[in-house]
C-alpha cells in the first residue's frame, strides 16, 4: 500500500509539472490553432536563466528561498520577452500561410533555441545548488519532500489564477473571443495582435516557472531538457483535449500518474512479460485508446468546429 501511495505521489508531482507546460501548448493552440513546438525550449531557457542567477548568488548570505525567487524574477521576464519575440519574428509573418509552414517554423525555432543554449551554457549539466530543503517526510511509509508539496501547490495556484484570468477578466474574454473567431473579434474592437502576443507572454511565464520547478526537482538543467519535457507536455495537452485549459491540467496529472503506475506495476501485471522499459509505451497506449474513443481528447471540443 505504501508503494502504491508513493507511486501516486510521484505521479502527481510529475503530472503537475507536465500540466504547467501543457497549458502553454494548449493556450497557443486554442487561439492560433498552432502547435508551438518551441514551447519546450522556452521551459529550458527558463531553467537555464534561473539557474545562472541562482548559481551566481548561491555563494552570498541571502537565504535559499530568496535566491530561488530572484532566479525566477529574472527568468520570467526573459522567457516572456522570448515568447513575445518568437511570436513576433517567427509566427506572425506566417499567420495566414498554410498551417504546415507555421508548424515547421516552430520546429525550426526549437532547434535554434536548443543550439543557442548549447553555445551559451555549454554541453555540461548545470546543477541546482542545495538551497532548498530536500529531507523527505514519511506519510504512511511514503516519502514526500517540502519541495514536492510546494511544486504541487504552486502549480495548482497558477492554474487557478490562469482560469480566473481567462474566464473572469476582460482580457480573458478577449482571448476567448479571439479563439472562437479572430476575424469577428477584431471587428468587435479586440486588438488581435496584442491578444496573441499576451497569450504567448503568459504561456512563456508559465514555462519559466515550470523550468525552475523541473530543474529544482531533479537538481539539474541541460540544454537538451526541453525536448522530451515538451513532448510529454504536448502529449498531456492532447490527452486532455488540446485547446482546453482544464483538459491540459487533467491530461498532465493523468499522464504523470499513468507513467508512474505504468512503470511501477507493468512488470507485475504482465507477470514479468513486459518490464518497466515499456513505461512510455504504456502511456502512449492510453493516449491512443482515449483518442480512438474521444478523438478530441478527454475534455476537448469537437474538431469540426476548428477545422
Amino acid at each position, binding site marked *: 500500500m505504501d508503494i502504491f501511495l508513493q507511486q501516486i505521489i*510521484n505521479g502527481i508531482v510529475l503530472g503537475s509539472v507536465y500540466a504547467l507546460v501543457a497549458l502553454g501548448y494548449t493556450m497557443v493552440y486554442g487561439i492560433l490553432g498552432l502547435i508551438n513546438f518551441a514551447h519546450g525550449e522556452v521551459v529550458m531557457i527558463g531553467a537555464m536563466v534561473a539557474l545562472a542567477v541562482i548559481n551566481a548568488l548561491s555563494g552570498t548570505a541571502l537565504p535559499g528561498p530568496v535566491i530561488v525567487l530572484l532566479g525566477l524574477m529574472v527568468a520570467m521576464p526573459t522567457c516572456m520577452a522570448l515568447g513575445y519575440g518568437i511570436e513576433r519574428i517567427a509566427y506572425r509573418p506566417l499567420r495566414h500561410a498554410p498551417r504546415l509552414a507555421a508548424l515547421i517554423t516552430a520546429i525550426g525555432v526549437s532547434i535554434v533555441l536548443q543550439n543557442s543554449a548549447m553555445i551559451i551554457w555549454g*554541453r555540461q549539466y548545470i546543477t541546482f545548488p*542545495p538551497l532548498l530543503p530536500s529531507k523527505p517526510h514519511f506519510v504512511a511509509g511514503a516519502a514526500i519532500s517540502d519541495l514536492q508539496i510546494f511544486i504541487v501547490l504552486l502549480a495548482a495556484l497558477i492554474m487557478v489564477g490562469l482560469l480566473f484570468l481567462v474566464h473572469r477578466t476582460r482580457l480573458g474574454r478577449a482571448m476567448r473571443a479571439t479563439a472562437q473567431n479572430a476575424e469577428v473579434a477584431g471587428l468587435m474592437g479586440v486588438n488581435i495582435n496584442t491578444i496573441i502576443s499576451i497569450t504567448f507572454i503568459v504561456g512563456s511565464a508559465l514555462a519559466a516557472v515550470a523550468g525552475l520547478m523541473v530543474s529544482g526537482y531533479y537538481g539539474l538543467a541541460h540544454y537538451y531538457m526541453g525536448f*522530451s519535457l515538451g513532448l510529454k507536455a504536448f502529449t498531456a495537452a492532447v490527452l486532455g483535449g488540446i485547446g482546453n485549459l482544464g483538459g491540459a491540467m487533467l491530461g498532465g496529472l493523468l499522464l504523470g500518474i499513468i507513467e508512474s503506475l505504468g512503470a*511501477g506495476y507493468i512488470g507485475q501485471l504482465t507477470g514479468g512479460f513486459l*518490464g518497466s522499459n515499456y513505461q512510455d509505451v504504456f502511456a502512449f497506449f492510453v493516449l491512443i485508446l482515449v483518442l480512438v474513443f474521444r478523438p478530441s481528447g478527454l475534455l476537448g471540443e469537437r474538431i469540426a468546429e476548428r477545422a
Partner: protein
Amino acid sequence: MKLSHAFALTILAATLGLQGCGKEQTTSSGLVVKIGSVAPLTGPQAHLGKDNDNGARLAIEEVNAQNLVIGGKKVHFELISEDDQADPKTATIVAQKLVDQKVNAVIGHLNSGATIPASKIYHDAGVVQISPSATAIPYTQQGFKNAFRVMTNDEQQGKVLGEFAVKQMAAKKIAIIDDRTAYGQGLADQFEKAAKAGGAEILAREYTTDRATDFLAILTTIKGGQPDVVFYGGMDAQAGPMVKQMRSLGLNAKFLGGDGTQSREFIKIAGADAEGVTASTPGLPMEKMPGGSGFLKKFESKYGKIQIYAPYAYDAAMTLVDAMKKADSVDPAKYLPVLAQIRRNGVTGPIAFDAKGDVKGGAVTLYQVKGGNWVPLQTMGQEAPPAADASPAADGKSPFSAGY
C-alpha cells in the same frame, strides 16, 4: 534581392570549392589523410562526446606538428568530427557520410549502441575503425577484421563488478537497472551473471532509457524489495539523478555502476549524494597510467577537465597513426595487418589486439566517491604482459622497465 543572390552565389562557390578540396587526396604540400571522429556532440551525452573528440583531436594535432613522412610523402592528418547523438540510427547515417567523404579510418563511436551498427558500414567500405569506449561484447564478435577497441569489453568489467558487489559490498539482495542500450544492457547482463554465480539474489531487473530523468517510479518498486545494492548499467546523465532520487525516497542501498557512471559530471549532478558511490572503469587509474600525468597536463591546459574517455580516444588515434608509420603506408590494406599485430605503449597502458580486435589485458579499476572526487579503490585483473618489441614511451622512459 541582389544582395541575397550574391550571398547565395558565394555560399555555392564556397561549397563547390570545399568539395573540390575534398576529392583531392594530395595537395601541393603532401598527402592529406582524413580521419573521422564520431561521438555524441549534442544531446544528453554531449559532454562525454566532446571529451572523446578532444582526445582524438589532441593526438592528431600532435602528430601533425611532427611533420610525418609516410611512404616518402609528407602527411597531413585531417580530423572530421561527426555527431551521432548516441543514437544507433544517426550513427549509421554519419558513418555513411564519413565513408562518402572517403575517410581513411574512424576513431569512434562512443556508445556501443552506436558503434555496432556503424561498424558494418565501415567494414563494407574498408574503413578502419578503432572505438575508444564501446565496451559491449558483440562489437568485436562480428568477424570484422577492421574493427578494434582500446578499452576492455564488458565481459571482464561485468564480472569484476559482480564479484565486487557480492564479496566486498557483501550484497545479498541486488536490484539491477539498465538503460536498454547495447552498453547498459550488456553490462547489466554480465553483472547479473557474476552476481548470481556469487550467490546474491537478484530482486528486480528494471529499465529506463538513455534520455530519462525521472526514475522515481522504478525506484519505488525497487524500494519495496529492500535491496543492499542497486546496480545501474548506463551513463552518468541518468546515474546522477538516479542516486539523488534514491536518497529522496529514503532508499539507502549502495549504488554501483560501470564506466558510464565514473565521470566528473556524475559527481557534479549527484552532489552530496554521490559520496560513497562505487563505479568501475576498464584500465588503470589515471595516475597509474604510464603516460597519465603527461597526458593530463597537455589535455587540461587545452580543453579543461577530463570526463572519462579522452585518454582512450587519444590512444586510439595514436595507435592508428603508429600503425601507418610502421607500415610506411596510409593504405588500409597495407597498415591493417600491422595494426592487428601492433604492440605499443599508450597513455592508458600497453596496447595490443587479440584476434578479434579487443585490446589485450583485462585490468578493471574500481573507484569510490570520497570528498567529492573519484578515488581508486583497487585494480582487479592483470594488465597485458610487457610487449617484447615495445617502442619506448614518448618521454624516453619505458614504463615497463620494472617489468610486470
